[in-house]
């Protein structure tokens, strides 16, 4: 046991937690506007990392352009996915939608594998590898990027949902799709937006985490599921609830891996997922009302 390293574990847990939060918020946004759990969410995360790598290494573009292009292409993928697979199935049963999104995720993963191969790739960090001392722990500049990007994105979505017309319209859809339609909100367009936004957020998460964890065609599965776990802890909120959910999960994982067993690290998320689903389906922070069962 390495109790002296607790602060280190907390810090690295916080940064993975931030990633989970970003992915989780993406889950929530789609869920709230459509009622769908998008099993393909993780693939947008993978696309973010792999596309950045592709633009960097194959096309030799500068980092910033590669990142912007990667987010753009991943968002496009999300939008195309919505158009081709989700929109035609709007009246389908939940089971069909689960299966469609799983099929879509396998398809995206498969195409990525065919395009870029099965190897694991490294992406250069955004601003060097000189460790920064924080108390007794050290972090990399990349961690700061993760905190900063997550904070900015979360604040932006909050502002978007609170102060813009389309943001408010999306919230209306989340409360009641039918009523939103009745007051003249174009629900289809909101669903379209929600896929665009959450694909963009997912790909961003994939891009900022790739320099730390490497990337390959199949990183999306685990990251996506962990993001979902964060969203479930947060009660499918598209704001702070899910951020806390992500951070709680990230820190528990990092402590669990450091203090007990790194092999069982991945199981932590799923145990939490099951417990929350069975005991508090409305999430940790909400009081009653939301029916998930």
């Amino acid at each position, binding site marked *: 046991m390495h109790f002296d390293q607790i602060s280190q574990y907390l810090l690295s847990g916080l940064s993975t937690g931030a990633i989970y939060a970003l992915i989780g918020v993406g889950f929530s946004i789609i869920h709230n506007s459509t009622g769908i759990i998008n*099993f393909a969410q993780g693939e947008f995360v993978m696309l973010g990392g792999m596309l950045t790598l592709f633009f960097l290494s194959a096309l030799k573009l500068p980092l910033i352009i590669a990142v912007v292009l990667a987010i753009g292409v991943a968002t496009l993928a999300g939008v195309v996915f919505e158009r081709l697979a989700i929109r035609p199935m709007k009246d389908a049963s*939940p089971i069909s939608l689960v299966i469609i999104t799983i099929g879509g995720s396998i398809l995206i993963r498969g195409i990525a594998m065919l395009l870029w191969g099965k190897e694991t790739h490294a992406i250069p960090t955004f601003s060097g590898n000189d460790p920064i001392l924080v108390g007794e722990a050290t972090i990399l500049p990349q961690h700061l990027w993760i905190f900063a990007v997550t904070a900015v994105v979360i604040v932006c979505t909050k502002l978007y949902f609170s102060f813009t017309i389309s943001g408010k319209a999306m919230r209306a859809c989340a409360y009641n799709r039918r009523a939103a339609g009745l007051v003249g909100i174009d629900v289809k367009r909101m669903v379209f937006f929600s896929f665009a936004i959450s694909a963009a957020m997912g790909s961003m998460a994939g891009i900022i985490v790739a320099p730390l964890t490497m990337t390959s065609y199949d990183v999306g*599965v685990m990251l996506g599921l962990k993001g979902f776990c964060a969203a479930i802890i947060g009660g499918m909120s598209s704001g702070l609830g899910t951020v806390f959910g992500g951070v709680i999960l990230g820190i528990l994982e990092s402590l669990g891996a450091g203090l007990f067993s790194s092999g069982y690290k991945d199981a932590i998320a799923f145990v939490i997922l099951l417990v929350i689903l*069975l005991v508090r389906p409305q999430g940790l922070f909400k009081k009653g009302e939301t029916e998930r069962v």
Partner: protein
Amino acid sequence: MHRIDSRDKKKLFRHEWVKFALFSLLIMILPVLFEGGYLLNVFIFVGIHTLLAVALNLLLGYAGQISLGQAAFFGLGAFASGILTATYGQNPWLMMVVVAAAVGLLAFAIGFPILKLKGHYLAMATLGFGIIVYIIFNEAVELTGGPSGFSGIPNLTVGGITFDSDFKNYYLIWGVTLVTILLSLNLVNSRIGRGLRAIHDSEVAARVMGVNVRLMKVQIFALSAVISSVAGSLYAHTMTFVSPTSFGFNFSVELVTMVIIGGLGSIYGSFLGAALLTLLPEFLRAFQDYDIVVYGFLLVFMTMFMPGGLVRGIPSLVQNLRARIGGGASDA
């Protein structure tokens, strides 16, 4: 009225028997056609997969409850049988039964809380369960051998016969599979089967009609776990080697794909789906690695355009074509 009703029923009944007899006959003579070649080995897997797909179909196709954790029950059966017979030298047949009962009990226990969830949440919960079990297979190295797998599992024996060749294993596995198919056909055409379909259509309506929805969902979940566990035991004794990679999330998804492609709520459809998805990679081997893309495509395509699966999709496709050709002919 009554007399016609019962005569129809009898006719239907006879029809089912004829179908089953023909199917069994086909399965029994296949090895002769293969002449013990490579396809025989592949068809052993078709048998195991059919068993698993039928089990999942009872849950997914009839009761309308999704499980993305079926591979876990399959794996528990395989590993438990393997460990108990190879490490602890227990009787394989006895252990197959004991393990299946234990896995059934486990499913029964977790079924009560988990099956309260619906749709997406049920999918996620069963998926979570499956991944936890998968992680345990990998991490409990002293018991399971971890990622490198567990070997030295004995073949099954009956009297003086040891099931150590493809030929014998084929008949062993298909024997079990055919019996399971027969029992499942019986089940879905019984009162229980009608109850399950009622749950599928509307839980509230089913409850109003006097179906104990909660109990029945859990029972069918446990039954599908028991069948999957038996499939796992058979798999372990046939292969004599098991490794965690066979029991991951991907395999759970593959099973769901089999059921969907074959046709939800069709027992023979499960055979079709299992056969297709087991044979496909063999033919796709030339294109290696393309199989994942094909799976994804098939899942999306079938759910969108052929939601009834091959069993219903092909006849209606043929009908449409015939109508079109017929229409075209009359035009000319």
